[in-house]
């Protein structure tokens, strides 16, 4: 059987995580191709709706990648994002999606290696979990949103 290649949406804040991903690129530090980056000005901008939509559309995992605590360009957007992620995790459990499929990580702009390692780690984790239960089903979660 062909190895399951999870699709992971990574919401990356422009100032830290997105730049860290660029750094990983310029250092040629590879990470799985299934990890796709969506650039946001701040993780504080990432709405629960975005997270759920990602799962609804078939993402196997979602990563919210912001700045280190205290380093947020907008003071505490990353803290707010973390709260929202926690909340969304609970909701995911309720609707039958493993909470581990959603994760908040923090890194600085220079941490290219950490970005690549994180992207690899989460991919492995999701691979172990298997494809998202949403996939192949006519799931209606989030439709209401």
């Amino acid at each position, binding site marked *: 059987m062909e190895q399951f290649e999870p699709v992971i949406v990574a919401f990356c804040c422009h100032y830290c995580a997105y730049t860290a991903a*660029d750094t990983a690129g310029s250092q040629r530090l590879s990470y799985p191709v299934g990890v796709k980056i969506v650039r946001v000005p701040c993780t504080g901008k990432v709405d629960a709706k975005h997270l759920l939509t990602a799962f609804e559309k078939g993402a196997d995992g979602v990563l919210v990648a912001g700045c280190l605590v205290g380093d947020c360009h907008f003071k505490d957007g990353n803290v707010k994002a973390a709260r929202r992620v926690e909340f969304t995790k609970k909701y995911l459990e309720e609707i039958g999606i493993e909470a581990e499929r959603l994760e908040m990580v923090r890194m600085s702009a220079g941490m290219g290696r950490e970005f690549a390692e994180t992207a690899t780690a989460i991919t492995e984790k999701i691979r172990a979990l298997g494809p998202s239960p949403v996939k192949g089903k006519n799931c209606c979660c989030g439709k209401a949103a």
Partner: protein
Amino acid sequence: MQKKTKLQSNGSVLVVGGGLGGIRAALDLAEARKDVILVDKAPCIGGLMTQLDRTFPTNNCDLCTVAPFTAKDSRGGHLDMRGLTTVTAVKGKEGNFTVSLMTAPRFVNVEKCTACGECQRKYPECVSFAPGLDPRAPTCMRYPKATPYAYVIDMAKCADKEGLKQCCPVGAIETDALPKVEEAQCGSIILAAGAALFDPSHLDYFGYAAQPDVVTSLEYERILSASGPTGGKLLRPSNGQPPKKVAWIQCVGSRGLQKGAGAYCSSACCMFALKEAMVTRERFDSEIETTIFYMDMRAFGKDYEKYLNRAKEQYGVRLVHSRPHDVLRPVGMDKLQILYTVDEAPKHITEEFDMVVLSTGFKMNEDVKKLAEDLAVELYADGFPKTDCFNAVATSVPGVYVCGTLQGGKDIPETMTQASAASCLAGAKVAVTPRPKAELPAVTPECAGSPRVGVLVTLCDHESTALDTTALVEYAKSIPHVVCAAAFEAACDPSSFDAVKAAILANGVNRVVVAGSSPRYELEKYQAMLAPVGINKYLIEVANIREQAAWVHAGEPAAANAKAKQLVAMAVAGVMAAKPLADHVVPANKNALVVGGGVTGMTAALELAGQGAKVCLVEKTAELGGVARNLVKTIEGGDVQALIADLVEKTTSHPNIKVFTATEIVDHSGQVGLFRTGLSVNGAYKEIEHGATILATGATPNQPQAFLLGENSRVCTQLDLQKVVNEQPKEVKKWKNVVMIQCVGSRDADNPNCSRLCCQSSIKNALAILKENPNARIFVLYRDLRTYGRFEEYYQKARELGVIFVRYSVDNPPKVEAAGHYANVTFTDVIMGRQVVVSADCVGLSTGFVASRKSNEALAKVFGLPLTDDGYFAEMHVKLRPVDMDKAGFFVAGCAHSPKVIAENLTQARAAASRAMTVLANDTLVQEAKFAHVDRARCAACLVCVRACPFDVPQITVDDKGLGRSYIDPVKCHGCGTCAAECPAKAIQLNQFEDVQILSSLDQLLAKVNA
């Protein structure tokens, strides 16, 4: 006969040399609204960098991040650029130079030439430029994207003028053209004409003249380059086969006293070789063995040590501490033999290689030397200009400045820094020339009409070997609403952009996707470039196919190509959902905040104040002067205390500078041109407004727990040692043996980088000790002696006076033990294979610097700025924007950026001032449409946004219908989008990142892409 006209350009700065340094200097000036004339004797700009395949430490080319800004219609008409032009005479003095400029005929009418190449095919002998290996490499256009995009003819080599003239299908060849001579007035002059490279032809033992497979580092670069003689394939010149083993030999033409070598270190070659070795393995074949034979591996720049470690550990580049005697190819043999020894044993080693690269250093360019002599600039015996020990860009002639490799061998970041510093000083001599500002393009309904998307794939082939750009373009064309797609490989060439503009107009494109490098580099550039064809800047989306596909997945082309397609599709979806927006123009604040009152901060403040800016200089401690207060003299003999006294005097008495000592930064808001910063001045709160900020907060002398430091009175740091030498000469006279240990607390796990200044400071102290006590025996235990540039000459001086330098390895560090009155230092001399014990009267530890992590973290938090892993402030682009920070309007200088010596700190201070002036020279500020807006119809005035906003921007206002609704002031909004995320009614949307945009991208991302 020559035509002679007089230019009307009073108050210009003349920049000689259109390489990277010249471009940077000219752009800084133009952006600060000063008139500049940029001349280069070559037909196109770009200098040496255009011949490089990629440059460290990013291992990419990046020319496209600078070159487009030299386009003739950019920079408000302040920049007058002339190719094929030389300075033939200079009269006058600072403030009023008259220069004669001679422009050689190109023999090609640039307006008519279509660069079809017909003339070159029929008359290849007329092609005059010889980059790298092929004397007629593919055209005279040095790199594919030469500016301007046209041929040049060497008429002296043309035998059939008439035939040549006739062969051009558009009649662009003008065989009778004459040189044009003009005079220009200028207030100051910047020499940025670069340096020549050492020619190793006469070094028979390295076989360069005789063996095709022995090449210089620049030639190797050309072989690697997509625009080079092999079309970007790594092949042995002798037989066209790919090499399996490549060796580099360092310090060819540098660090030598015979056969024409310079005594200085060329500073860039170690990193250059590392880069070439890494690129060889990464881009061509990871099986190719790469070996660098070196004397000292000089990775002294910011984060360069990590780059070195990466080369060794991640890329498997092999480093051998040895200078080979010969590169040979015995008759009948196909491979080259290198003969060398290693430190550990007196034994010959012969190893075979397919190619050998000689890392040739910089030499003074003879043409430039002549010009410098005409200007009466004082030169060293080796031809490089003498500069002030506290001002590396100021020559002996007032008003004449130098930068880049013309001043001495250096890499790109240093060149860029010096260029900005030179432009700071040169610009101070000329006034701002007012020019009408271009109107902002209006946002019309048409620009958002039915979406017609154009896709531009802007990645150069050589940056994206993993990607098939042709297939990507074809794929893009298949996406609905995409009306045209093209690969645009001339991103570094402004004039080649005309074709793109034409395609956009012809196809009625109103939205553009740029598939290239990170939007962090591309977005602003393409916004500026596409504005003239009416593309609203917010209808441009970037697909980051370089960092996110070509580079991360370099090893898996299929995956990289599929991902690139997906990224493009996502970007198309995003741009389809985007809305056209208008920027605001607001009056800009023209004051500056300088944080840090050391020599760097004071210098930056003085330069800004001298150009009319009002400056707030904030110092945390009660006193100005910073760490430099601990220093006595520079290695060149510059009196540091006198410098500080002078700076303090000038700073405190300058009418434009307000000094706040014992002051901390407590809060900060706003954006470039409109910053607001709260200070705690001796505990009292005060708020200031400023348009730009320079961080010059320095670094902290390291005090590691090692070698009995702090436990044994014989052991001290170099800073302490310097004090003892200065204050207790009698004590020093008693010393018999002194040992210095380098890299204590640097280049280790805790502090991985090199502190850069320790090698020269130990040599400085050694020389000072010997001055007091010529009979003292001094041992310097080192890992790599990093006396780059002219510091090498002090290293030589120290050896001459008997200082013994002993190399140690991290696996076998020296030991220091208390031994009664002495400290016994035990170390191994690998060359003798013996242990040596020295009973030392004094052990000086080169403890270097560490980032002031705590205070940097606090500042980074307040200002919202990124730090590097080791706690220094991170610049925007390590190579091309070394003093700019990611956040517009912020600049960094001095040890806050990374440790360096005083002169370098001051250069950076001037560079930061120059960069800050490009902001402060503007009366108005274009404010990006990056703010949240409220749909008042949906708003329930629930106050969630009011509570959520980190900056207290939303307010509930009552409209004319008496309804209370949230209002977000666009000028105050920072654009984080937290309110939009939290708003329960989804009444708030953030410009550029509206839900519909994000969701469209997500839709596309998760739709199956069948590549």
